[in-house]
């Protein structure tokens, strides 16, 4: 998945971070790490 594809699939306002019972929007750094994780992901065979 390319960076652009990841951003299109997971817009910033559609993904969240949860700490205990609190779900909040991702910070820019967290979102960047999240998108990079999608880009780097290699499906297992």
């Amino acid at each position, binding site marked *: 998945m390319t960076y652009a594809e990841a951003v299109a699939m*997971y817009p910033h306002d559609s*993904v*969240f*971070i*949860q700490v*205990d019972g609190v*779900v909040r929007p991702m910070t820019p750094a967290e979102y960047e790490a999240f998108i990079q994780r*999608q880009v780097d992901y290699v499906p*297992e065979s």
Partner: protein
Amino acid sequence: MPNEQTSVPLFVANTVLTASQQNLSAGTGVPVFATTVTRDAAFGGSNKALAEGQLCYLSSTNVVQYYDGAAWQPVGASAGMTLVSATTIGSAVGSVTVSGAFSATYDAYKIVVTGGAGSTNQALTLTLGSTSTGYYASYFRTSSFSSAAYDGQILNNGSGWTESGYGTTSGLGVNIELQSPFLAKTTILGGVYQRGNTTAVGMGTISGMLNDTTSYTAFTITPATGTMTGGTVRVYGYANS
């Protein structure tokens, strides 16, 4: 609560035993306290001295206790495993952190995730605190779904325990044991998982360690890709004694 009391009167010679005192005694039998604080304050001084064999009931926790001469103990068998926390996973979360999971109360823990779903089939990574290095593990997996009989895999100084569980579009699954996450010792991990993706190897075991002696109180579960929605993260502590 009508039965709750704040003292355990000590009666001495030539004093009046009042109706209210007698009613309190007859009404409770076993003294009833709101909390351990009011319980502890009720004994000693001008009240009855606390001694071995004393019983009480705590309305805040609905338990009966006895005093063994040194400390209050629960009546009945002690639980070998206690639920520490249960966290309901929200919608479309890229990670879920459980803080305050580990403490001095327990040396060993079990982490279980059930229910919910992933946005896609995905492995789940477990990390402790904010540590992102020093994770080691070995994996052994057998197949129920494909021609691959088994495969082995190692994690060498990874950024997290990958494949500590799996999420699929029909459910999340984590079943991990941790030894000594709170102690200033190396943390040891063991667990099993079922992989829901029927195109690849299916069931496996993981054993691993975190190569530091940091004391951890929190952990985070992160999907390798996509997000998680719903389900519950439960943490159990194994009784030390």
